[in-house]
């Protein structure tokens, strides 16, 4: 790959006991691109996200975000370095309002914290006002402006997914990791999610890496697709390469099907 590298993950590995969940995975994301990570259940996709966001510590490998090595950082330091994420099973702060959820993610960019709040300094008040304005703007961006004061736990499922994205965006990331953004959504909601992902790139200029099972979504938004199976990267390339890649078909459908549909394609399309 050429161009301006934003994320450069090299030979990342993680074992849990005897199971190697992520085995020597390499991933490169260019600035302003949308990359999908796909693979059957249990392929190690979410573990891969957890490794680069500091939730697990990799056994081996490096993950450079804009030159900063994320390996060994705590999750909050990873967020501060410019990598934000959503979760596969939505993890909002259910008892707080939608706006507050977004504001929480703004905390690290607010300099006047504790004493400013206690003594209501001017800096604190200004900062609080601008944070609320920014957060409201983000809610508008994901189409939740009307729901700002609703408790996050009371939002509809699709709204919760979008709120999670708004919250992640509030950390002002350079790169956004979305873990199954369209899981459990109907076709219309999936279309909306797709539009939102494209707008994150076009309007905010933020690169996106998504884990996704909805192949229509993956094939239409991705600049680049990486396929994992049993913790290993088995293929990567553009949508067309992946669709016909024998190893991918094998991983998803089994060896027999793969043999029948096999076409003389390139082995590894990267």
């Amino acid at each position, binding site marked *: 790959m050429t161009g301006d590298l934003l994320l450069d993950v090299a030979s990342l590995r993680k074992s849990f006991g005897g199971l190697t969940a992520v085995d020597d995975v390499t991933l490169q994301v260019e600035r302003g691109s949308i990359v999908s990570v796909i693979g059957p259940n249990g392929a190690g996709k979410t573990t891969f996200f957890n490794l680069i*966001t500091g*939730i697990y510590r990799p056994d081996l490998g490096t993950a450079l975000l804009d030159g900063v090595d994320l390996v060994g950082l*705590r*999750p*909050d330091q*990873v*967020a*501060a370095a410019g990598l*934000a*994420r959503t*979760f596969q099973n939505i*993890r*909002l*702060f*259910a*008892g*707080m*309002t939608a*706006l*507050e959820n977004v*504001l*929480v*993610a*703004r*905390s*690290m960019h*607010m300099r006047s*914290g*504790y004493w*400013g*709040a*206690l003594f*209501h300094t001017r800096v*604190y*008040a*200004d*900062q*609080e*006002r601008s*944070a*609320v*304005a920014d957060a*409201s703007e983000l809610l508008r961006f994901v189409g939740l402006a009307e729901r*700002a*004061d609703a*408790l996050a736990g009371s939002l509809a499922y699709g709204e919760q997914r979008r709120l999670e994205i708004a*919250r*992640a965006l*509030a*950390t002002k990331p350079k790169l956004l990791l979305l873990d199954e953004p369209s899981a459990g959504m109907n076709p219309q909601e999936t279309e909306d999610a797709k539009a939102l992902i494209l707008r994150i790139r076009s309007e905010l200029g933020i690169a996106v890496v998504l884990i996704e099972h909805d192949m229509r979504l993956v094939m239409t938004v991705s600049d680049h697709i990486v396929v994992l199976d049993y913790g290993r990267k088995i293929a990567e390339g553009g949508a067309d390469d992946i669709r016909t890649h024998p190893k991918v078909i094998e991983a998803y459908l089994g060896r027999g099907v793969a043999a029948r549909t096999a076409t003389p394609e390139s082995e590894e399309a990267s």
Partner: protein
Amino acid sequence: MAPGFPKRSVWLIAYTLAVTLLCVFVFTGNGLIDTAAFLALLVPLFIASDFDKCDPRVGMPVFAFVLLCALPIIGMRNTFYLDVAIQVGIFAVLALGLNIVVGFAGLLDLGFIAFFAVGAYLWAIVSSPHGAALLGVGFPLQGDAFFVVAVAAVFVAAGTGALLGLPVLRLKGDYLAIVTLGFGEVIRVLANNLDKPVNITNGPQGIAAIAQPLTEVAGALATTTAPAFKWQALIYYAVVLTLVLVAVLANRRLDSSSIGRSWLAIREDEIAAQAMGIPLVRTKLIAFATGAAFAGTMGVLFAAKQTFVSPESFDFNQSIGVLAMIVLGGLGSIRGVMMGAGLVTILNLQVLKSLSAGLNHLRATGFEIFGWSFANLPTQFEPSKYERLIFGLILIAMMLYRPRGLVPAQRRPISAKNAGRVS
């Protein structure tokens, strides 16, 4: 609320004035009816502080009237009530402090009273003859150094909180609770045993003759009808009231700030909070230290008011008592927590005691009901003897029927207008 003067407000004002007059002129004793009247006087505090239902333009004056006018007058006639109010105030601040730790940040702390002990011993040592023997020239401090030491206690207790918090805050949930319980006991055991090799705490005998603040003011105001000790009580009342106000303000401001939102986020989902850039240990430490600071300041006041401290005042039951207050009132809800503190303290200090007194009176006079004489009532049957039982039953009932407390916490909408201005 509609403009003009709604009927409910008229009722509230009339009720408050009527009960005040009754308390001042009729029910001035310590009996059951007097207690009931006193409790009736506290009801307007609860109603008037609910600004969702009560117009602040009516609520604030009513609130101020009860606290600044009615209570001091009643208290000057019968200091017992002033004492109750001071105790409620002390526990209200303790509860507000613990509310930050447990209610906001969701860190179950079973040893909270330790920080209260730190503050109490701090003032006890610097202001008593015992401390003078230990510290030497310049000690004991004059009573009026109280105000300086109270401010110092904020930092001493916060520092202790941070020190204890640092090793334990990596733990979660049950583990954290057990370790804080241990630390709470450690502080008490230290107080109990630090009388040798160097006598710092005077061990189980405790420290006596602790100085009181503003004694010269109380002395100057003394008259035959209002002796100095009443004025001293009134001074404590004023100090407590100020501290409660400061504590409420601090609670509210922190709650609506970015640090408060971070605490809540950690309580709701630690992993998500951390992934959104919130440093867990640092944020939890701030909660721990802030809660400890509240307790430390009140410890100074407690020591001054009692003029005596001993390890007994800081046992595990006290930690549980404060925890019960905030659970009863509503975790994370400032109004609820204050109410919980008020109810539990008054129940312990006053209601059960006056029930006991009432029953004893009936027994002594041999009062008969349906041919059965109260003289036959066993002496074990005395409400103040099983306050913990009654207390436990109330807690069980609460958890069954109102698990989120008497006044459940609510999130208030933030708008660009009120951002950074909640006070």
